């Protein structure tokens, strides 16, 4: 549930950011577009003004040309002629420019087309009259002027110019309005966009604050549960330790109390055995007396078996058999009880971590089993081993148990090869004890570590305690232990122990 909410929240954040980005992009794009549009509008307005300006200029130059013509016709002074030529030279480019400026407007272009011949006609008239005047035909010239054709043309030109101006005025108003609209639009888009961004930012801030508050709460909860967990672990550890101590005490007391009756059973069994000797001696004496056989020579010693016959012989044998079974069972039970006692004693022993030269320690163990090794024709090889800090006695017990086992369960008739290897791995020392012995069926790999359990052919003495004990020790030393083996393929026991076993772990019993 919480994960779902968190996912929704994350999606919300992403959507919010995306929306903000989209709005900003839209604003930027709109602004760029509108600014461009405004610039275009401004340029159009400017052109309108320019066109009007140009129209005035053209009119002005035409008027100037006209007045220069009039002046010349009246005075015939060449100054006016020069004036006229100047006006003409300015009129032509002004017209071209005007034509170019209005080339994008069909209305103006139509007007232009209309006006151009009129201009040319008028200029032609000016030139004709001036030419006539120059060639002393003033009368002809005056006549042309008086005819008033020129005035009509002029009026027509003025009309057309007014129309052009009107058109331009209209365009001016239109374009100004356009430009105003673009600017207003740009301003409002920027305004709305900024508003949106501010709103989005507000939402984002709100969301971030909410999620950070949620995170703080989650943090607090996590801390709480962490503390709870630690307390729980401490509690459980204490419980476990107590339970473990109780089991140890229980095992200790039970094994002691079991031993007490065992002393009696064994004691009185031995007494019985002694009585048995007396009984059968008497039976033998009685049967001899009954059969009136010649008296047998007195037994040299009390312990010598009396001579018995038939059913008496059988009785005596049965008696002996029963007693020997009782005695061997007692012996076995005593060994088991001793083993439990030793285990509990080991469990109660305080470990003392010291620096240990592992190779030297194992060489010492190998020296003590040298005799057995020679008997089994076994060779024990010790590779370089990592030194560790641990409990010396525990380590001795671990390795001597494993080496004993390796020697004990070799294949008959095959010279034994036992190798002890070592290496380090991530703060742990790994020891391997390999042999070429009879091996262990994989289905028994767990069983061999259980107390009083053994595997394989039971042809060697033992109580099934060694490996259980070794594993308990390894665990108490903060390590682990495992076996890799196949039947008839030898076994490898691997022990992993911390290189630097801290003294603080000393009292943790597993």
């Amino acid at each position, binding site marked *: 549930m919480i994960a779902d909410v968190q996912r929704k929240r994350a999606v919300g954040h992403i959507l919010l950011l995306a929306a903000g980005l989209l709005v900003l992009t839209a604003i930027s794009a709109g602004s760029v577009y509108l600014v461009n549009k405004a610039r275009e509008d401004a340029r159009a307005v400017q052109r309108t003004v320019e066109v009007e300006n140009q129209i005035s200029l053209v009119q002005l130059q035409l008027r100037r040309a006209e007045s220069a013509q009039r002046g010349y016709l009246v005075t015939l002074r060449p100054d006016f002629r020069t004036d006229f030529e100047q006006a003409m030279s300015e009129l032509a480019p002004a017209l071209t420019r005007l034509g170019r400026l209005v080339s994008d407007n069909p209305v103006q272009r139509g007007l232009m087309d209309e006006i151009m011949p009129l201009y040319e006609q008028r200029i032609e008239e000016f030139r004709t009259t001036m030419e006539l005047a120059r060639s002393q035909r003033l009368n002809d010239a005056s006549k042309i002027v008086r005819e008033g054709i020129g005035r009509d043309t002029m009026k027509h030109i003025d009309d057309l110019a007014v129309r052009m101006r009107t058109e331009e005025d209209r365009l001016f108003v239109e374009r100004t309005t356009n430009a105003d609209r673009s600017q207003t639009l740009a301003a409002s888009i920027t305004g709305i966009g900024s508003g949106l961004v501010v709103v989005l930012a507000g939402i984002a801030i709100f969301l971030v604050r909410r999620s950070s508050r949620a995170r703080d709460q989650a943090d607090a909860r996590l801390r709480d549960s962490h503390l709870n967990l630690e307390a729980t672990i401490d509690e459980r550890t204490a419980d476990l330790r107590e339970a473990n101590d109780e089991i140890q005490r229980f095992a200790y007391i039970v094994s*002691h*109390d079991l*031993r*007490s*009756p*065992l*002393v*009696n059973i*064994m*004691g*009185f*069994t*031995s*007494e019985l055995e002694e009585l048995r000797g007396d009984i059968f001696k008497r039976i033998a004496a009685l049967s001899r007396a009954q059969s009136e056989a010649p008296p047998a020579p007195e037994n040299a010693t009390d312990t010598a078996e009396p001579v018995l016959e038939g059913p008496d012989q059988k009785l005596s044998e049965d008696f002996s058999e029963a007693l020997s079974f009782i005695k061997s069972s*007692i*012996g076995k039970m*005593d060994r088991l009880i001793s083993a439990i*006692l030793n285990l509990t*004693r080991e469990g109660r022993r305080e470990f003392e971590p010291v620096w240990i030269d592992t190779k030297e320690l194992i060489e010492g163990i190998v020296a003590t089993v040298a005799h057995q090794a020679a008997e089994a024709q076994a060779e024990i090889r010790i590779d370089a081993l990592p030194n560790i800090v641990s409990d010396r006695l525990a380590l001795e017990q671990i390795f001597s148990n494993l080496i004993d086992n390796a020697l004990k369960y070799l294949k008959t008739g095959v010279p034994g090869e036992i190798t002890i290897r070592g290496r380090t791995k991530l703060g742990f020392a790994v020891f391997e004890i390999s042999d070429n012995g009879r091996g262990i069926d994989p289905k028994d790999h767990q069983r061999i570590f259980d107390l009083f359990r053994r595997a394989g052919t039971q042809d060697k003495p033992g109580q099934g305690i060694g490996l259980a004990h070794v594993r308990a020790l390894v665990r108490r030393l903060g390590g682990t232990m495992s076996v890799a083996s196949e039947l008839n393929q030898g076994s490898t026991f691997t022990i992993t122990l911390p290189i630097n076993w801290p003294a603080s772990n000393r009292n943790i019993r597993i």
Partner: protein
Amino acid sequence: MSNPVTIIMIEDDEGHARLIERNIRRSGVNNEIIPFTSGTAALNYLFGKDGTGLDHKGGALLILLDLNLPDTSGIDILKRVKENQYLKTTPVVVLTTTDDSYEIKRCYELGCNVYITKPVNYESFANAIRQLGLFFSVIQVPPAAI
């Protein structure tokens, strides 16, 4: 042995008591053996009605003590005997199944004279008791008085 020593055997297990007695007798020790099966009865006898132990002033005793008793701890008996002014010179032989080294050390600290672990193996057991009997026959027990 001018003053015959009385052996006080404090042993809750009658079988053990019987075995011990038999083996002591077999070793040729014929001193009187007074068996007790509970700590309370033994304490009553040792310290008398007044609880001072004055009754045994001048008598010669030897105590055979089992540590695992049903009513009192053998350690307590040992402690009380060794703290009593009339009884503290009495030799105490602890004969028990416990072979815990800590327990053994504690007994010697409290003044026990001999500590013997009862072996299950009867041969060893009988042997231990017979040797103890031999020991009894040679040690000089001082009269329990000052």
